[in-house]
């Protein structure tokens, strides 16, 4: 499948004169797993904000599954099939993991259904399965506020899966996790990549190497280069802006 699920053309975002994104072009094939790296302030998070409708582009357009997302707000874009995981886990702390997952799993998200709908047995089974997958069986009915950081990260990824989006946007999924947890999350993402298109933003180069097939480097709000991990690492421009200049080489290595 070489159909494009996401296409971004000439995207510019201006915050009061500060160009967070500058004439950015990007496209993602259906079923692709793409990692985006870039130094702090390169515009990575703004990039996700624009795709999910949180930030309106100044110029340029985003096309998702062949349709422009212009004029849609966050929840409409989410319903089109874009799921987003935040850098710090965002879950409903006063609900249990089971309830968290149920809310994401629910297909009919209007007010009427919230009042009169009941979770179907298929949904309940999906939720039970997910709880097992993310390893929270024992804590499924505790308040999510009591979970550890790693468990919250897993819960949020579980919520993303429950939403069953076509495109997953994952912002630094392994920040603050142990090596073992990092590897688990990596395997989870690789498993998800078999049936979803995924964009991962990451700083942890070990982790990028574990999961990346194709890497995009952002710098100053625009795409610096694209390619496999090896190509990117040997690109002199990348070495200069991201991995450090010659004199910093030793420190970076």
């Amino acid at each position, binding site marked *: 499948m070489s159909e494009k699920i996401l296409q971004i053309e000439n995207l510019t975002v201006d915050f009061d004169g500060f160009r967070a994104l500058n004439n950015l072009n990007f496209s993602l094939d259906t079923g692709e797993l793409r990692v985006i790296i870039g130094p702090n302030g390169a515009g990575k998070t703004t990039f996700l904000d624009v795709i999910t409708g949180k930030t309106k582009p100044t110029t340029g357009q985003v096309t998702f599954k062949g349709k422009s997302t212009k004029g849609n707000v966050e929840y409409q874009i*989410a319903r089109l099939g874009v799921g*987003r995981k935040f850098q710090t886990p965002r879950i*409903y702390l006063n*609900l249990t993991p089971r309830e968290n997952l149920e*809310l994401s799993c629910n297909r009919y998200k*209007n007010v009427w259904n919230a*009042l009169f709908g*009941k979770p179907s047995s298929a949904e309940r089974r999906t939720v039970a399965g997910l709880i097992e997958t993310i390893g929270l*069986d024992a804590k499924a009915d505790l308040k999510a506020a009591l979970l550890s950081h790693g468990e919250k990260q897993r819960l949020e990824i579980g919520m993303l899966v429950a939403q069953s989006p076509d495109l997953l946007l994952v912002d630094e999924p392994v920040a603050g996790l142990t090596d073992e947890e990092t590897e688990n999350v990596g395997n989870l993402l690789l498993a998800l990549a078999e049936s979803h298109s995924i964009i991962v933003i990451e700083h942890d180069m070990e982790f990028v190497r574990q999961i990346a097939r194709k890497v995009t480097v952002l710098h100053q709000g625009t795409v610096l280069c694209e390619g496999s991990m090896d190509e990117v690492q040997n690109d002199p421009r990348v070495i200069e802006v991201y991995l450090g200049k010659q004199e910093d080489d030793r420190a970076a290595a």
Partner: protein
Amino acid sequence: MDALIQSKSKARQRLLIEAGIVAAIALLLLFVIPPILVGSGQGFRVNLLGRYLALAIAALGIDLIWGFTGILSLGQGVFFALGGYSLAMFLLLQLPDGQLPDFFSPYGVTELPWLWQPFYSLPFTLFAIVFIPTIVAATLGYLVFRNRIRGVYFSILTQAALIVFFNFFNGQQKLINGTNGLKTDTATIFGQTVSSPPVQAFLYTLTILLLVGGYALSRWLTSGRSGRLLVAVRDDEARMRFSGYDPTMFKVLVFAISAGLAGIAGALYTVQSGIITPQAMNIAFSIEMVIWVAVGGRATIVGAILGTLIVNFAKSILSERFPQFWYFFQGGLFLIVVTVLPGGILGWLREDGVRLVRSQINKRRPLQTYPSLEEDPGVQYERKNLANRESDG
């Protein structure tokens, strides 16, 4: 699946128990407490109880919007007054044909203002009591929430709305008697004076029934999926948006319902106290309503009712003894609740109270090992499962 059916029948059992308790309390309030109060020469307290139960309906609305959804509205007085004025206007129009309510004559008004015309009709009035506040809240809420005005900005906006409405009602002498308000106690309904004992007894009963109805509505709204979504609005609105929910509509819904409840409360309070004035839209009164809920316990529903009754009876008893000092007591009470009992009375009962009682009667099984081993659900789960595995092998 077995576990599911079991938990379902358990939930139904719990619901039945709860319904039984509510019914018992309602019957107690209807048939036991009034004779006791009258018998002990405190008959006027029945009327007070009726008024405070009416206020409790407004408190239920605040618990829904503030306790569960985390939106602090300081303008509930507007909706309370709209409900109160609606019913008062209806009552004042219970006159022989061609006559106008008394207060119009000093202002030289000879023709009934158009605003009053629909209030000849009882069905319209009943509709107005609930839905004028609801519609006002839904409109205001939609405009505010759609523009993502939240938190303290929303609170300030509701307070500003309160001042706007207060000034309007206060300044319109020729329309609604301005600052003097509308007196309902000498009006008649179905041939009886509103302040007569049979009518008051009827209103007392009606208040209790509507409070039970309000309780049931609140319980229904806050259980199940809609309740979880209200909590989700409070916890993380952005997460909700990115999961495909539109929080605006949920917030508008809960704001509108809380306004409808405040409207009902205002109507019932007005006819039991005999007057509605713009003072119902006093800023302090709307803040007091929030205090009742805070004292009783946020997001507990029962706490809202309990807090309203406790604070208001304390107010009436203390202000009889020490008329000047009530506001100090009220301020002190609020400080104590915020600093010592952040969960309110009910929150404290549920957390520490149960523990305290248990430790007193020594019901709690003393721990054999470390708390982490005894109480960690993960450890418990593993232990249970490992035990199963052993028995299998």
